[in-house]
Structure formats: structure tokens, C-alpha cells
């Protein structure tokens, strides 16, 4: 057990930090958000140059062999600047599917393009009725000669409007909520039968509603009827990245709040001298530090090979950080007062990002209930 960064991890952190500090200020972000794609192609090219896009892939596949600890570092920095680029969609989710579900030939085809910043992937998983259940799938995949044809509607496809590829969860057999019979299919955005309607999210990100109508899959990831374990595994890793992202965002907004408490004057003194506000800020720190601990745990637990244990641990991560991030986000607005209600001030943007992050792949209530139903973390004596 070692919490210190090694030399290459420190270098990695430093290089992202420098790059984002220079090019991801409040005004930069606003401009990226207002651009045609809703994020910055220039920054994407820079991430490729820094090696972030190929980071988690093995060197044989054309990546840099980074592990979960490295992903954690990147995610935290992305959270600190609430970046808009499809790093999470393409590298964490898309990359996860390639690492855990693709054969060497497919990895050889896609990984170098991802690492170079030339291919973008989005996960098409959510359906109107599915809420947070990964196995609740009505989209179908029908055998069509050698391949599969996908039909169905997917919602909240993150960065779906700029994706080159979709990983689509679709049902080959079984009923809507059966855990078997689900496959993961790689579908090109250019394939006939793919209709994409993009929109902006409350946190400034982008997503799309995607209709698949007899769209031919380019490849199957893993077993065509046994895709759920891969989806579970990739989502568990993604939850660890979301946890680290939340830590970055929480820390920034907490610091922003502290700065404000130290400068804003009312009743003839800085408001940070009032004990009610000091205690609230201390409680935010407790929440942040507990969450940071949980983000370390997430990175550790996401590597677990026992799927049941791993999922239980990720429930705990989402539940703990979820509650903490809501508290820190809400209190950062409250302690600032009116100024943080304005679009022109940073805190609200962090709050919105934290709010969306909390609900991604299941909100606090969902995960707390799921963990309780699964028997919790501690065995009875």
C-alpha cells in the first residue's frame, strides 16, 4: 500500500496540470462549450500529444500501459477543470470495452486511432425504461448473415453527437430484464440506419439520442449473448474514474468557497470568522477527505477479479461519494450566497458537474439500496 506518486506518475500529473491550467480557464471553457462540437478539438489533440488518449492500453496494442492509478490521476485533473472533451466516453468507457471485449485484431484496428485522437467512441446503453439497470435492454440484435443488425433507441449517449463508433448493448435473446442474452456491439456512426440527435446537458457536456434501425454491427465485443459481465466490469472501472473526477471538482469548489469566506465582508468583518460558516466549511472538508479516501478505494477495488465483490465495492463508492459531492456542491453555493447563483461565477458550473456525476451509472439511493440488498460490505459474525 503506497499513496505516493512514483516518478512517472508525478510527471504525468504535472504535464496535465500545466496543460489544463494554461488552456482550461473559465473563459476558455465557455468558448469551448459555445463551439460547434461543444468541446475543443485543439485540446483533444493536446491530450493525444500528452499521451492521455492511449494511456490505459497495453504497449503491444499501441498504448502506454497505464494502470488504474494513472487513470485516477487523469480523471482528477479533468474534474479540477470540469473539462468537456470525450475523454471519459472514448478512453475510459470505449477503451474499457476494447481492453476487456475486443480481440487483438480489433484492438489493432482501433487503439492506435484512439491514441492519436482520430477515433471517438460512445457507449449507447441507456433506454427510456432502463433507468440505472445495465441489464434492462429492449434494443435487439438480430443475426444477419455473418453479423448482427441492431434495432432500438438509446438515450443519454454521452458525446454521441461526435462519436465515430458506438458500443451498443443489445439483446440477442431473452426478456427485457434477463441478465443473459445481452451482447455488446461495435457500430460505426456512418453505418446506414444510425440516426443521431445531439443536445447539451445541464453540466455543459454533450449527449445524443441515437436510433438504430437495422444498423449493421462492425464487430461483437466478447460473446454475443454474454456481454453483460464485460459491461459490468467496464462500468465498475468507469465508476472509479468518475470518483476521481468528483474529487477534483469537489476540491476546487471547496477551495473557491474558502477563498470567498476569507475575502467577503459583512457586518464589518470577513464572513469566514463566523463559527457557523467555519463549521460548515469543516464539514465540507470531512466529506471531501472521506471521498478522497473512497476514490483511492475505488481505484483499488475496480481491479478486483471477483465480479460480485467488485460490484458491491463500487456500490459503496457511489453511495459515499455521491452523498459527499451533493453536500459539498450544495454548500459551496450556500456559503457563497447569491454570487454563486450566477452563470458568470465558477462555483455553479462545478455544482452542476458534480450533480450529473453523482447520478451517472446510478445515484446514491440506487447504489445504497443495491448494496443493502446484496448484504452490505461486512459479513455477519
Amino acid at each position, binding site marked *: 500500500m503506497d499513496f505516493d506518486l512514483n516518478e512517472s*506518475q508525478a510527471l504525468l500529473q504535472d504535464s496535465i496540470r500545466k496543460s489544463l491550467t494554461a488552456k482550461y480557464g473559465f473563459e476558455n471553457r465557455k468558448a469551448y462549450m459555445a463551439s460547434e462540437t461543444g468541446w475543443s478539438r485543439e485540446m483533444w489533440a493536446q491530450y493525444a500529444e500528452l499521451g492521455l488518449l492511449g494511456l490505459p492500453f497495453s504497449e503491444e496494442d499501441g498504448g502506454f500501459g497505464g494502470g488504474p492509478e494513472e487513470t485516477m490521476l487523469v480523471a482528477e485533473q479533468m474534474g479540477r477543470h470540469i473539462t468537456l472533451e470525450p475523454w471519459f466516453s472514448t478512453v475510459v468507457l470505449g477503451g474499457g470495452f476494447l481492453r476487456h471485449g475486443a480481440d487483438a485484431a480489433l484492438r489493432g484496428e482501433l487503439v492506435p486511432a484512439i491514441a492519436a485522437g482520430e477515433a471517438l467512441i460512445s457507449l449507447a446503453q441507456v433506454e427510456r425504461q432502463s433507468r440505472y439497470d445495465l441489464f434492462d435492454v429492449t434494443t435487439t440484435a438480430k443475426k444477419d448473415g455473418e453479423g448482427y443488425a441492431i434495432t432500438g433507441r438509446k438515450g443519454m449517449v454521452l458525446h454521441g453527437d461526435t462519436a465515430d463508433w458506438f458500443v451498443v448493448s443489445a439483446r440477442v435473446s431473452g426478456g427485457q430484464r434477463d441478465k443473459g442474452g445481452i451482447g455488446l456491439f461495435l457500430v460505426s456512426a456512418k453505418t446506414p440506419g444510425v440516426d443521431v440527435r445531439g443536445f447539451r446537458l445541464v453540466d455543459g457536456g454533450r449527449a445524443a439520442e441515437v436510433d438504430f434501425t437495422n444498423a449493421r454491427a462492425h464487430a461483437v465485443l466478447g460473446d454475443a449473448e454474454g456481454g453483460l459481465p464485460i459491461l459490468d466490469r467496464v462500468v465498475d472501472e468507469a465508476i472509479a474514474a468518475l470518483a476521481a473526477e468528483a474529487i477534483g471538482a469537489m476540491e476546487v469548489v471547496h477551495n473557491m468557497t474558502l477563498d470567498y469566506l476569507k475575502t467577503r465582508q459583512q457586518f464589518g468583518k470577513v464572513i469566514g470568522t463566523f463559527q457557523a460558516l467555519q463549521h460548515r466549511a469543516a464539514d465540507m472538508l470531512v466529506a471531501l*477527505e472521506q471521498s478522497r479516501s473512497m476514490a483511492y478505494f475505488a481505484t483499488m477495488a475496480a481491479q478486483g477479479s471477483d465480479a460480485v465483490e467488485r460490484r458491491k465495492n463500487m456500490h459503496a463508492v457511489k453511495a*459515499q461519494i455521491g452523498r459527499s459531492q451533493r453536500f459539498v456542491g450544495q454548500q459551496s453555493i450556500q456559503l457563497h450566497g447569491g454570487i454563486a447563483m450566477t452563470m458568470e461565477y465558477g462555483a455553479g458550473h462545478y455544482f452542476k458537474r458534480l450533480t450529473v456525476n453523482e447520478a451517472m451509472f446510478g445515484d446514491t439511493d440506487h447504489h445504497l439500496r443495491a448494496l443493502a440488498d446484496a448484504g452490505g*460490505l*461486512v459479513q455477519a*459474525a
Partner: protein
Amino acid sequence: MELRFTDAEVAFREEVRAFLAAELPDATRQHLISGKSPTKEMVVEWQRKLNKKGWAAPEWPAEYGGPGWSPAQKYIFREELQMWPAPMPLGFNINMCGPVIIQFGTKEQKERFLPRMLNLDDWWCQGFSEPGAGSDLAGLKTKAVLENGEWVINGQKTWTTLAQHADWIFVLARTDPNAKKQEGISFFLVDMKTPGITVRPIITIEGGHEVNEVFFDDVKVPANLLVGEVNKGWDCGKFLLGNERFGQARVGASRERIRRLKAIAKETMDGGRPLIEDPEFRRQVTEMEVELKALEMSVMRVIANETKRAGTGKPDPTTSVLKIKGTEIQQGVSELLMKAAGPYAWVDGDPDAEGTNEWDVAPDWAFGLAGIYFNWRKQSIYGGSNEIQRNIMAKAFLGL
């Protein structure tokens, strides 16, 4: 960064478990599982076994008898003891006074006291709080005056835990009445057998005798039993309290209690089904487990950080996080345990007393759970109340 236990650390955990299985008397273990505090004899016997093994003081430097463990090993050791459960190394000796002597004491003080602390030849207690100095500890009034080369102490201490067992007491006393309040305090080591010391029990709301008042009436203390410099005792006190907070996380103890809680909730019926199947109850337990998991990692981070801070003499302000969360969880779990007992929680009696359920008026497992709940309300008050912890964080860490 390497976020997993190494093979060597996993093997160490097994070694600790094997030692517990071989050396801890089962009667002691069963006594602790029932929720009772260990007796003096149990603590002494166990401490001596740990000392023989070289494990009596996990956090001490090797030159003073510590085992020279890594942060992860220290963590694993504490967790395994608490989960077994076994008595912990006596906190007053090992985590409070010992580290102060190591950090601030003279060579003579170290040689005289540290080996006896390790072997529990001396049982120490803490003379800090006073009737008028609780959260505002620096407002203490107990005086020490130098007369003919000896310090003469007069005053009253209170909330002195297990003073009835103690051979020695470490005392904060005012040595300069004219200085600013933090700057006129010194740290003394006092033999409890010295004439002029009187110990009077305080019975707490659950009926137990754990804490005491200690009166000092012209108590003479040799000059070589002042630790550090005259009027610099506040530094020793702050250092000690920082270490104390760290010990208050008690992650393994809470895990052991949750295991017990779940076992009880499987047996207890509620609405015609086991209590554990009630979604609302289960959710409350799960919330505790989730926060406990985060606390476990927080403790590991603080331990790792402490190794780096070793020798700076300054406590890590994030230890306040451990104190707040650790006590909230312990209190929360004690409340759930009492709730699980339902009406059978109502039988009055000191949870530590032997044989108090001899008339079989409640299930054995339920006996004393309310007492523990009442007793544990102290946790968010002692060691610097949780509100004082927030003040500390605001000042020392947040710069407010």
C-alpha cells in the same frame, strides 16, 4: 502509488491472526464480544504478551521498543486486534504519554518510564480536563509551584479515565499564572501513590465506573519529572491530543460491532420476519458500512502521512476527520444495536458488570446494549469535542 496490499502485508495479517488465536485467552475474547470493557487483569496480561512478542507499541520508533512496522502493518495490526476482538495496547501508555516522552522527554525519563509502559508495569492515566477546563483546556487552573527544588501541585482534575487502576498520571498544570494562558502550562509525570492525591469515582449515566475526579492537595513532584521545558507543556498536550484523535477512528472495532449487529438482526424478528430483511433498517446499517469503508482508507492515508511527518512534532490536522467520523460511526452503530434489541434493551444495569443477567430477564445478547449506547455518547465529547475538532480544522487547515 500502489493501491493494494502486498503479499508481505497479506502474510503479516495472517501472522497477527495466528498470534491472536494462539495467545489471547478465549474468555477475554468472549467477554469483549458481549460488549463489555476488558478488566484490568485482561489488559495487563495481554499487554505483556504483546510486549514479549515485541508488538506492544506499534507506533513507537524501533529504538524505543517499537516493532518498526510500515504504515500498512500498523493499520493491519490495529484492525485485526479490534476485529478479533482483543484488548488494544493501553492507550494512556502507548499512544498518549509514551509518544510525549519519546518526543519531548529526557534520556533519563525515557529509560525510566518507557520499558515499564511497554510491559504495563505502570498503568498511566490522563490528568488534563478540569471542572472549569473542558473544551477550553488551556483555561486549566491546577497550579504547580517550584519550592525547594520540588514542584508542588494543587488543584482538581476530572474525567480521569481508569484512574482507579493507575500507578502514574500525566498532568498539565499552570506554572506561570501571569503568562498568556497557553504559555504558562507544564507537563508533569506524577506517581499516584504520592501523598495528597485523592481519587473519587464518577458514575456515568449507564451505571459504570470508568471516570474519576482526582484531587491534588500539596502533591510534591521531583523536578526531574517535568517533561520538556517549563511553560511549554501545551506543546506536549497538543501533540498528545493529535495522537489521541488518530486512535479514535477504531475502524476494526466498528467493523466487529457491525458484524455483531448483523448476526443479531438475523435472529431478531420484526413484523414477522428477521429484522435484517427490513429495508429501512438494512439501509441504515449499509450507510454505516459505506462511511466506515471510507474511514478505513482515511486512516491508512493518515498513517502513511504520519510516517512522513515523524519528528516534526506536529499532528496532522486531518486526524480531526478521523475523530469526527470515527465517533459518529461508533455512536451510530451503538444506536442500531440498541434498536435491534427492541424492548429487551430496557433492562437497567452496568454493561461491564459480571453476572447482571443472572435472572435471565432478557436474551444475553441484548443485555447492556442500551448501556453501551448511553456510554458511547461520550465519544463525540472527549478528546476535544467534535465541535472543537471543527474549530481546529477551520483554523489549522482551512485558514479561516
